[in-house]
């Protein structure tokens, strides 16, 4: 199930697995390796493309494609593998990526706000307990932060330049 803007929503995107048939028209999320090999075939296509990127892959690998793709799905093979937090932050602050950044894989309830603050804006939730807790009470929403982040937040009251509050 896809969690976005504080609710479960229908997902217009279809994830294509490695080795699956070439994608039909429509929103498809392609494994990065496939895209890197086949991207010339999409030269004349306007079909919305998303990329699935595993941790450890440098943004440099697909830097030239950032203008073409509408979604980047950053993978969490284990919740403790925090590399994608930095990847998302770099996509937003360094490379100005304005498309959707989606967290996929092992995503914990209590990580959602941290992910949002790094620039993620949608979350694929597979764990039934997390699905239920989100449906019942939404994601945790702390209101005070000690560092600037992405997402709905602004400068906190007081003199500290690094303090932020949720809006």
């Amino acid at each position, binding site marked *: 199930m896809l969690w976005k803007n504080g609710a479960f929503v229908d997902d217009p995107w279809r994830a294509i697995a490695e080795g699956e048939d070439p994608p039909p028209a429509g929103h498809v999320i392609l494994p990065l390796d496939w895209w890197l090999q086949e991207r010339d075939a999409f030269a004349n296509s306007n079909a919305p493309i998303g990329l699935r990127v595993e941790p450890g892959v440098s943004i440099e690998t697909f830097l030239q494609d950032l203008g073409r793709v509408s979604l980047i799905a950053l993978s969490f093979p284990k919740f*403790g593998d*925090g590399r994608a937090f930095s990847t998302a932050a770099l996509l937003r602050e360094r490379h100005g990526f304005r498309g959707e950044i989606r967290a996929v894989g092992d995503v914990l309830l209590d990580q959602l706000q*941290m992910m949002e603050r790094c620039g993620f804006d949608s979350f694929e939730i597979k764990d039934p307990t997390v699905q239920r807790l989100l449906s019942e009470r939404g994601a945790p929403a*702390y209101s005070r932060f000690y560092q600037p982040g992405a997402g709905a937040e602004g400068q906190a009251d007081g003199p500290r*330049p690094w303090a932020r509050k949720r809006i």
Partner: protein
Amino acid sequence: MYRYDEFDAGFVKERVDAFRDQVARRLKGELTEEQFRPHRLMNGLYLQLHAYMLRVAVPYGTLDSRQMRKLAHIARVYDKGYGHFTTRQNIQYNWPTLADTPAILDELASVEMHAIQTSGNCIRNVTADHFAGAAADEIDDPRPYAEILRQWSSIHPEFSFLPRKFKIAVNGAARDRAAIQAHDIGLQIVRDAQGEIGFAVYVGGGMGRTPMIATKIRDFLPVADLLAYTQAIVRVYNLEGRRDNKYKARIKILVHEKGAEWMRAAVEAEFAAAPRVGIELPAEEVARIKAYFAPPDLAPRAHSLAFEARRRSDPAFAAFVASNIAAHRMDGYGIVTISLKPIGGAPGDASADQMDAVADIAERYALGEIRVSHEQNLVLPHVALEDAPAVFDALAACGLATANAGLITDIIACPGLDYCALATARSIPVAQRISQRFGDTARARDIGQLKIKISGCINACGHHHVGHIGILGLERKGVETYQITLGGSGDETCSMGALTGPGFSSEEVVDAIERIVDAYRMLRTDESEDFLTAYRRVGMQPFKEALYETSKGADI
């Protein structure tokens, strides 16, 4: 010292409330232990051999009397009446129940304390020189910078799931009392040619299985760039640090494998490219934080005749002054180290009554300020020498006047197999036996400055690599074996100890230490040459001979 404002208090309250909710979900079974683990670790709660252990943050080791009384209260109500001060300048409680932890965190919050990020793969409690703000050799107080780093790193959204834990230390004096070169990031306050304050930046030090001395990657970092540069280092580490093997996941391995030059270039490139909005430090904001740590208004004190008279007439007081009172930047004052290493005791333990007594003594004689040192002692940073006899008597009344700071019985030891789930051997009993062997004050003073550090497994929480004498407890075929290293040091001359050779059994290890000490006393040029200096002059060989070839001599 720093005081919470509404924002800080609100931040901690939100986190305590969230943890209460997480504990409730865990107790109801909605979270598995595996899912709960990152949350309990984020709040300093470990699952140990016998029970949960709660580690409470003492930011850069600075406390006031009110906070110390609260720590005593928690020890009394929620634990078995004592707490254990750690090498990260924190305190841990070994017997809280899971259900009680939210209440303990509420108690802590009421005195502006918390347990956030005292464990887990995040940026841990930032440590600093325990003599900060008082030491005679200080360039600038490291605590305001440690406080700024503490705030910025708290629940950092990008850096809460690092490859491994991450430790930062700040030192502000010529003498490195914060062991910065044994940290993931070590910051040494320096002045440039214009007299501006900044930092020499060291990266990639650490102990554990693969001890490494940090590499200096910046000679001078302006204060304004403190957070931006730290962010660059941690970001490079988060993206590039190894995650395939937790024993190779610390930043020291990244620096070692990729090389110091690669690390420097990667950090500088990241630093140059990242936006500074919100993390560049305006001078007025640094000044505002510094004001919390402004030097106390100490009334000038004349040379104390009472102090001198007591010193001449009372050898016990004279011994205490010699080892436990350090030079203060103000004439007429001293920095008093309260040893938590009573002869035969468990290093770093303090009872609730002792904590209350320290709080009272600090309030009466030392402006209510207390420090926790990474050597597991407490410190009263501002004591008028005129009051030192009274302080000594009050400490003696609660068993806290052991005159051994910096001496052979001032031993650092990890909890070891008595408490820790990772340990392979006991540490505390070995420390206790060494302490008893050298318990005679005159003998310990004759031996002089000597740091013994004991770890109960290769993770090196007892910092044995930087002990002048290091002891590492291992398990060999079901039997505890203790390896000995010599020549380690955590100060500005940082070095990792070298292994003497085969290890010793639990029964043999204290005799082995005594042979090393006897060899040192034979080898030293005179009493002014301390153990480390002598070792560096003569090298390992004579100690090896003393350790492994004594039987030849004894048999003749």
